[in-house]
Structures are given as structure tokens and as C-alpha cells.
């Protein structure tokens, strides 16, 4: 039996029944409580949590069926197994209809009792586990991840909360690196579609023809190389949310196709003629002024109206400088955990330097700066010298002919190309982040 035994409450007016069931379950290592009537059972339920109640139907005062109904209302998670006299199927059926988990008949077959109790407790364990996982999911993907407490951030959080549990189309606008995908995830996590997928499509990352195939999927033989039928992102988002990032970059033709889908939630796969239905919510994001693009004629007005139902504008970091200390603290804790480094924060001087920057790359750039500082920092605090400002760039040319010299200069080249974005550099170098961290430290690299 585990260290934390399941708790079983036995409710029966007959002492001998309570006694023998108590001994029976105690021998199996369960924690057992016993009550002689409904009122005593309710008192016990009030004072401690129980996993399972075995309730006799026939009891003086409130009978087992009434008690079971009451238990279902006050403790819906408690599983109730009804004990009924042999042949009293009617009362057992009544109890099951009111939400009892199962029933056993008196006298009790030990085999049957073991089976029912094991099954009930397994059901209870899975239910609790499921709830904990859902709660954890809510925690990790919720709005709390959007760090900051300035007025402009509070307003964004309020808008997220307001729109999350609806199916309204949202347009998130903000400069690059402000956290548009984070907001999209928070909206998805706060709505009723959160147990279905959030499917992101990075529109700018794909050429037009590939984007079409990515969105709509294709039938077998739709084009050269289409050996199998493939579902598109629109189909994969069924039940969940479709997140169209950088929507301003899509071509006029795809804009037309997309408009039709957003109006009907119906489409055909490339090379196919069968209509496919998909029920998804749409969240779009852009770092452009869509209104201006509409005026210029590069973005369709009708599509703009279709996506601009509930706009959320994320302020750039330079307009919420007061949030920088909070963000820095968040990233230091995040990377200390990820890198297993004993760094607790930033020095006062370093924080002042961070607050003075313009941050054209916004929160993402700040995060990169902290991540980089965490890699090269030696002390328990990030110092000004660990930050990537006002430092002579490291020479890109190999200082010698050894493999280490060449590796060092190649890593510098990639880090500079990505503006010290560690994740992106690691991807390009095809090594994991931890290896890149080690190499940066080994070669003493600074941006």
C-alpha cells in the first residue's frame, strides 16, 4: 500500500457490518472511518476528505439513498457505493440514477467487494489526476505568463480576460518581440477551447504556395511530391484555436481564400473537391498597421473587418519601462532553473542600464540579453559587464588554425547573425542549448 492510503468511509447502522468491513479494509491498508447513521457520516465528511463511501440503503432517519443524494451535492468528487439487501434491485437502480458509482448486495461477496472498491478507487485516482493536470495546464499557459503591472499591461490582461471565454475573433497588434503569441496562448488557455489544440501558423515564414498547402492541406497527388493526403492547419485546429501570426504578409490570393474560410468555416484541401468543416476560433497577430495596409491596398478591407473584431494592442517595452525589473526577475529565475545556475538577480547598476535601453526588439530582446548574461556571468548577480551593451565585439576571424579556433569563430558568427538569440543559434548550429551555453563559456564569448 502506498504511503498515503485511500480513505474509505463506511456508513451502516449495524455495528457488526461496520466492524467487519472496517477490519477487512484495514487489513488491506486503507484508512477506514465508520458512521452509524447519515448525520454522523455528514459530520465525518465535514471534518476530513474521503475518497469512497460505502453507504447502506436501509438506515433509521435519513436513509442511504437520501444520504447519497446529499453527498452528491456537497461532495461531488466523493464516490459512493451503495450497499443494498439481496434482491433490492429497485433501490440500487434509484441510487445509480442519482449518481452512485456502483452497488453491492448484502451479504457481500468478498471477490465482488474487492473488485468494486478497486475499480472505484482507480476511477477516483484518474479523476483527481486529470483535474490536477488540467489545473497545471491552466497554470502554465495562463494569462499570468504575461508579466507586468503597469497600466497598459493591466489593460491588456483585462482585455484577455474579457475575450478569452468567447469565440470572438481577436486581432493582436504590437511590435516584434512584444509577446503577441503569449497573448494568443493566454486567450486560448482562458477559453472553453483550451483542451483542444492551439495551432499557430507563421504566415511570413512560408512562401505563398506552401502557406496554402499548410493551411488547407492537400489530397494525394495534388502536386508533385504529394504522396499522401495531408490535413492542413485549418483542419488540425478543429475544436481549438487557429493563430495566424504575421497575417499582413499573406498574398492577395490567400487573403481571398482565407476570407471565404473565415466566413463559412468550410474549405477544400488542395487538389480535392470535398468540402471539409472545421470549427475553430481565429486569433490573428501583426506588427504592421493593418489600417495603413488597407489604405495602401495591400490588405483586403473585407478581410480586415473580418479579423479586426476585438483588437488588442500590446505596448512596446519602451512604453512600459517600469515593468523591466519584473521582467528581468522573471527571466533570471527562468534561466537559473533552466541552466541550473546559482544567479539570484541583477546588480543595481545593471538594472539601471537595462532600464535605460530603447529595446527595439522589445521583451524578446530583453529576454535574449538576460539569457546571454546568465551564460557568461560568473557571480551570483548579473553585472553591467555581463550585459551586451558598449562592449567591443569579439573578433570573428579565427585566431589560429586549430579546430577550436575555427569552432569559436563560427559560433561567434552565428551568434552575431541572430543577435545573440541562443535558441535560434543552437538550432542553426544543430546543437542543444546546453552545449551552446558551455561553448560560450569555454571560449569566453561576449557580444
Amino acid at each position, binding site marked *: *500500500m502506498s504511503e498515503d492510503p485511500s480513505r474509505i468511509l463506511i456508513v451502516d447502522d449495524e455495528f457488526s457490518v461496520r466492524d*467487519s468491513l472496517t477490519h*477487512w479494509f*484495514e*487489513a*488491506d*491498508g486503507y484508512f477506514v472511518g465508520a458512521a452509524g447513521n447519515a448525520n454522523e457520516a455528514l459530520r465525518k465528511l465535514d471534518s476530513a476528505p474521503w475518497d469512497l463511501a460505502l453507504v447502506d440503503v436501509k438506515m433509521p432517519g435519513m436513509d442511504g439513498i437520501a444520504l447519497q443524494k446529499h453527498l452528491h451535492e456537497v461532495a461531488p468528487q466523493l464516490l459512493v457505493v451503495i450497499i443494498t439487501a439481496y434482491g433490492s434491485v429497485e433501490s440500487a437502480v434509484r441510487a445509480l440514477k442519482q449518481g452512485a458509482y456502483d452497488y453491492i448486495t448484502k451479504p*457481500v461477496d468478498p471477490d465482488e467487494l474487492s473488485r468494486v472498491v478497486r475499480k472505484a478507487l482507480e476511477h477516483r485516482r484518474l479523476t483527481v489526476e486529470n483535474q490536477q493536470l488540467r489545473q497545471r495546464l491552466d497554470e502554465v499557459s495562463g494569462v499570468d505568463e504575461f508579466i507586468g503591472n503597469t497600466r497598459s499591461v493591466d489593460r491588456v490582461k483585462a482585455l484577455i480576460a474579457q475575450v478569452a471565454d468567447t469565440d470572438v475573433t481577436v486581432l493582436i497588434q504590437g511590435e516584434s518581440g512584444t509577446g503577441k503569441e503569449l497573448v494568443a496562448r493566454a486567450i486560448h488557455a482562458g477559453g472553453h477551447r483550451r483542451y483542444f489544440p492551439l495551432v499557430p501558423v507563421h504566415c511570413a515564414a512560408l512562401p505563398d504556395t506552401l502557406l496554402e498547402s499548410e493551411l488547407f492541406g492537400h489530397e494525394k497527388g495534388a502536386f508533385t511530391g504529394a504522396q499522401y493526403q495531408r490535413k492542413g492547419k485549418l483542419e488540425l485546429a478543429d475544436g481549438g484555436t487557429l493563430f495566424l501570426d504575421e497575417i499582413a504578409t499573406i498574398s492577395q490570393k490567400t487573403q481571398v481564400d482565407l476570407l471565404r474560410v473565415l466566413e463559412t468555416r468550410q474549405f477544400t484541401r488542395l487538389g480535392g473537391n470535398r468540402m471539409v468543416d472545421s470549427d475553430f476560433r481565429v486569433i490573428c497577430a501583426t506588427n504592421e498597421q493593418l489600417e495603413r495596409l488597407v489604405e495602401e491596398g495591400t490588405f483586403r478591407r473585407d478581410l480586415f473587418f473580418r479579423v479586426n473584431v476585438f483588437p488588442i494592442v500590446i505596448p512596446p517595452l519602451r512604453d512600459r519601462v517600469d515593468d523591466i525589473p519584473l521582467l528581468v526577475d522573471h527571466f533570471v529565475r527562468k534561466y537559473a532553473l533552466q541552466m541550473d545556475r546559482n544567479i539570484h538577480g541583477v546588480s543595481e547598476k545593471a538594472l539601471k542600464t537595462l532600464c535605460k535601453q530603447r529595446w527595439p526588439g522589445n521583451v524578446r530582446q530583453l529576454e535574449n540579453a538576460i539569457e546571454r548574461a546568465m551564460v557568461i556571468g560568473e557571480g551570483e548577480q548579473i553585472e553591467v559587464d555581463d550585459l551586451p551593451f558598449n562592449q567591443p565585439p569579439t573578433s570573428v576571424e579565427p585566431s589560429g588554425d586549430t579546430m577550436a579556433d575555427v569552432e569559436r569563430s563560427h559560433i561567434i558568427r552565428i551568434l552575431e547573425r541572430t543577435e545573440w538569440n541562443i535558441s535560434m543559434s543552437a538550432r542553426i548550429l544543430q546543437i542543444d542549448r546546453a552545449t551552446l551555453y558551455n561553448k560560450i563559456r569555454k571560449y569566453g564569448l561576449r557580444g
Partner: protein
Amino acid sequence: MSHVLVVPLELEHRPGLLRALKRQLKRRLGVDADFGTPAFELESCFSAVRMQYDAMALLEALAAQAGPRRIVGITESDLFLSVFTHVLGAAQLDGVAAVVSVHRLRSEAVGLPPDPALLEERLLKEVMHELGHTFGLRHCQNPACAMFSANNPDEVDLRSAEYRGNCLRIFHEKRHSL
């Protein structure tokens, strides 16, 4: 030398089964099994309504007879325990008395021909299990341990006649009380 008092309850017609049990208890637990007769009215523990012996009543009567020794009653009749339809055996947790029925352990109970060797093995496992309760052992999660819970002969066949792990440790700590 440690002793256990074994009390056949209407089981005198199976001397071979009892001798085999005596031999195994000596081998497994190092105890001498002395045979005795019930010092109580057997009828007083019988339920005419259920046509079974009341395991709880038998345990009380056997405990009164036992004195400080362990006592195990063995019967061929079926046993019931309060709310349960039947039990294969019962024991006082941390007490002195245990009772085992061979009624459902017999192959004949499921329509198979008699199998004396299998019955000996099942009886030994049941006696080891119920005696284990008298040493304060509870049910064990290890299917290879004699204290693994078994509600029918098939489950009895799955477990062994030996205490394992923590159960064995507790048994060794308390065996001086035999």
C-alpha cells in the same frame, strides 16, 4: 520449542491433510503443531439460517481455549463473517486465534476431481496467511508473499506460503511470542 495448537473442527477424517500441515509448519516456521479438540460447543458457532459457521464466533471460542498459545481451527465447513457471504479464513489481528476452512479450497468445490496435494498446499498457504495476521501482519502488495490478499482459491494458488520483505521482518521480530 515453539508450539501452535491446531484444532480440527469436524476434520478428523482427513488425517493425511493434518499430518502434512504439521510437517510444513515445522519446516517453514520451526514450530511444533500439537493437535487438540475444541473445548467449546461447536454447534454454538453454527448459523442454521446461513448453514455456515460464524468465523467470528469460532475465533472467540478458540481464543478462549488458547491461553497464551497461538491456536488455529481448521474446518471443512464453509465460514461466513458478518456481512460477507463467505471467507476462506479469519484471524485476530495481533491476537492468538485463527480459523481456516478448506470448504472452498477443495477442487471438488468447482466440479474437479479431488486433488489432495493441491489441497495440502492451499491449506498451508491459508494457515500461514491467517497466522500472519495474528502476528500483526496486514495484507501485502507483493503477490509472492503469503500475506497477499486472496479471496478465492485461484488467488490462493498465486501467492506463496512464505512471508517476504517487510512481512518477514515483522514476523521475525514477533516470532518469540509463538
